[in-house]
């Protein structure tokens, strides 16, 4: 028989991997159920308009499309389940009591996963709290992820905390136009202080403080408290400090590191963002705060393959 090759980035899960994937999903559901999260199973595809209502352009390029022969409309295959949960929370589950706690798992397809990962089909699992009441929800999410990692025997990891909204606040403080803001974003994304002088010395000096504030939680907390920033940036820093203070006091701070300004690739986070990294420099979990229909939400997700390989 002629060899039947699969498209680039797609592979069958053979017995060993398939079992591991199943076990990871099963253990994840068990832990989340114990914490009173409800399971939802969103559709594999939906109309483009609803699929991308939250992401303002960042997801579109990375999603497969098909034409629905019935409606003659273009449909998108999900590349991230979080946005579907957001749609459900303000649709079918709109009248459920808040905070609404949901979990999900399922396959996603990405046109390009990342330059380093060739797989275009992955299993995503995650949880969301819709209608966040206070900063204890941030603690809860971090505790859940830590419990999941412990269950999967991943003990050596670091949790990176950042505040992506600082980029916008710097832009507002210095009245940057769209072109300058994009330039600022590129520089921040590359931790490139050299080119920031092209905008202004003042922006360069403020950015030096922000981009260099990477390190252990305690050290960066003290640093940010001791510095002064322009009004809108200071406001975001203050929100960030509240979260850092909370983590410092309620969780073991050894695992935390702070990278004050990190660019949000998903495009929908409007507050604290966190990422769990393994010793092998792999991202295990990521998540953060966002808003849907004027409701504050916090969520997290992971790709099963990253958990299997660590």
């Amino acid at each position, binding site marked *: 028989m002629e060899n039947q090759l699969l498209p680039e980035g797609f592979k069958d899960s053979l017995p060993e991997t398939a079992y591991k994937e199943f076990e990871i999903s099963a253990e994840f559901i068990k832990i989340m159920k114990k914490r009173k999260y409800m399971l939802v199973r969103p559709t594999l595809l939906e109309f483009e308009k609803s699929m991308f209502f939250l992401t303002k352009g960042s997801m579109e390029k990375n999603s497969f499309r098909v034409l629905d022969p019935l409606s003659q409309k273009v449909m998108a295959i999900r590349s991230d389940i979080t946005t579907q949960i957001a749609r459900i929370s303000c649709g079918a589950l709109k009248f459920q009591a808040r905070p609404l706690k949901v979990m999900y798992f399922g396959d996603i397809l990405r046109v390009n996963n*990342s330059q*380093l990962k060739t797989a275009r089909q992955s299993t995503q699992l995650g949880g969301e709290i819709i209608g966040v009441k206070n900063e204890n929800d941030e603690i809860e999410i971090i505790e859940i992820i830590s419990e999941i990692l412990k269950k999967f025997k991943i003990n050596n990891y670091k949790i990176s905390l950042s505040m992506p909204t600082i980029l916008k606040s710097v832009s507002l403080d210095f009245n940057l136009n769209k072109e300058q803001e994009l330039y600022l974003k590129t520089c921040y994304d*590359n931790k*490139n202080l050299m080119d920031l002088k092209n905008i202004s010395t003042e922006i360069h000096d403020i950015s030096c403080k922000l981009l260099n504030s*990477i390190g252990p939680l305690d050290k960066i907390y003290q640093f940010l408290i001791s510095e002064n920033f322009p009004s809108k940036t200071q406001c975001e820093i203050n929100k960030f400090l509240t979260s850092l203070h909370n983590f410092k006091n309620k969780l073991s701070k050894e695992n935390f590191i702070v990278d004050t300004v990190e660019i949000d690739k998903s495009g929908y986070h409007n507050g604290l963002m966190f990422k769990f*990294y393994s010793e*092998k*420099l792999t991202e295990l979990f990521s998540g953060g705060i966002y808003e849907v229909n004027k409701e504050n939400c916090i969520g997290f997700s992971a790709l099963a393959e990253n958990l299997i390989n660590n």
Partner: protein
Amino acid sequence: MKKIIFAVPKGRILDDLLPLMKKAEIVPEKEFFNTSSRKLIFKTSLPNFEIIRVRAFDVATFVAFGAAQIGVAGDDVLKEFNYEEIYSILDLDIGKCKLSLAKQKNNLDFEEKKLGNITVATKYKDTVINYFASKGVRAECIKLNGAIELAPKLGICDYIVDLVSTGKTLYENDLVEQEVLMNITAKLITNKIAFKLMNKELQQIVKKFEVAKIE
């Protein structure tokens, strides 16, 4: 201190980098200077700091994957791969050159020809496609890994895009520079996740190079 691997490019940039490394008190073991050595990883005067010497194009890949936590790469390589996983931390101000479009002496300028598409021999396929796309021109690239200057001479194409340092190679092959796509210097780069997790250690190395640059 956790072990750090430093990826350096073979060739032109390395010649400029070695004096800078010496000033930064990062001295590779003797074997590193033995060109016939098959060794791939070298110890240095710093504890837990090792060097790998790889092709210039591979430095970015090693750093992006986190196999090396820090490295040195030219803007040409960084632009071509455009890895999201890399921070370009410090301009080392070495390895200066240009990425240029060149044509045969007797050929018309690309602009004069008013072409909607252009065929270019280059090893910088993505950079060239993006550059001409921004001018509304479709670039068809013929991927060559060396002796690119031969391509117009032997009739493969009319234009090339390649690194130009002194312009001597162009001149000797009857080519003239037409446009500069970008000016290039070598940058100190780090893996993004490593920069978070090993910030203290990597900042120490960055500081050494900052000081060495000023000396």
